[in-house]
């Protein structure tokens, strides 16, 4: 949770995705951090924990940096609470909450088909 993650998501309409993220996932507009992405155009958003930053870009991914982020993973501190809120807000739930070896996760999508995985990381080891 302490590590800052800068991820580029290639989307058709960055402004619409920005609206989706700020409205439903408590993301905020971080235009001032745009300098972190020298040479890239797009909109920067950050989550409420300050550890996930996302550059929403409508340019095509380069060969050197293929679009690996078909599903964008965000960390959350409470997956069930977020699932409950998003479900009530009418957001499309692609996969209901499920338990995996890394924690509890739910997958949602916006109107443009962009998929987001909300992951509540859980440390299952003894220590």
């Amino acid at each position, binding site marked *: 949770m302490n590590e800052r993650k800068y991820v580029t998501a290639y989307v058709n309409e960055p402004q619409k995705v920005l609206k989706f993220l700020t409205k439903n996932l408590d993301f905020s507009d971080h235009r001032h951090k745009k300098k972190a992405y020298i040479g890239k155009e797009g909109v920067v958003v950050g989550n409420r924990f300050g550890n996930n930053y996302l550059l929403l870009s409508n340019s095509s991914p380069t060969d050197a940096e293929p679009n690996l982020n078909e599903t964008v993973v965000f960390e959350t501190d*409470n997956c*069930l*609470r977020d*699932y*409950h809120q998003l479900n*009530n807000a009418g957001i499309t739930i692609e996969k209901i*909450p499920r*338990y995996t070896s890394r924690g*509890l996760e739910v997958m949602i999508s916006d109107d443009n088909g962009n998929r987001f995985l909300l992951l*509540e990381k*859980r440390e*299952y080891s*003894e*220590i």
Partner: protein
Amino acid sequence: MKKIQILSNQNKIYSESVNQVNCLCECHEFSIRFVFNGSEVYNIGSKELGMFPDNFLIINEGTVYNRKIDSEAAVNTLSVLYTKQFLNSFHHSITSSDCVLLDGPFNPPNSYNPIFFETLYPLQGDMMFNLQHIRRLFNSEINNDLLMNEYLYHCLFNFYRIYHKEILVKSERLNVVKIRTRNELFKRLNDAKDYMISNYNKDIQLEDICNYACLSETHFYRSFRQTFHCSPHQYIIQLRLSQARHMLKTTNYEVREIVNLIGFDCVSSFIRLFRDKFGVTPGNFRLIAAA
């Protein structure tokens, strides 16, 4: 101090913070019970079950029990109670095939009346994480019935997973052909396990455990190893180390005091066993946990 929340589907959450309790009760709904500090003792039939923060207990509908708390510091407990209708519906949905569910989506058979082993279960993994969310919402001023329902559904789901792992899988390990004999042997082994958990910090002997479980020493030793994949002695050591870990995390007791409280005689052997089990010394573990 007591607090109760009754949800729209009549499932309930009940919490208490008390120093002294000694009461005989009948459980009117299936319940899952937790204690967050100190201990609580339940007597069900001839069994005495000592609950600690790293385990939890389930009680079936209709069971008569006595619960006892006797502590200088207030002991915080929380119980989640499910109505018969909810439990039956959940059981139906999780144990039936899609075909059966499609044929009878709204009416689980009345014959359903899931009865579970009333024993101590380890509080770990997702059950522990979800319990923290339940407790946080319950203690907050937010009254969100639907979210609490979501949590309780997952709490029951987590219990079913633990039940599968702790009861169904482990009973299958017994090398006994007759189902009735296997069930009886597994029940007695569970009684022995509960006895060890409840008396983990005392100087208990193999003979005491066997008398409690009504099994001969050789039969008990062999069957216990088969079921739990460790010897009774190793099992008690694991219980003590687990309790020590909890105390290191949640109290300011010195390591020496913890060693006495969990029933170890020797500090150096405790440190060695703790390091072997968790990969760090007790002192370093406390530093990591506090960070």
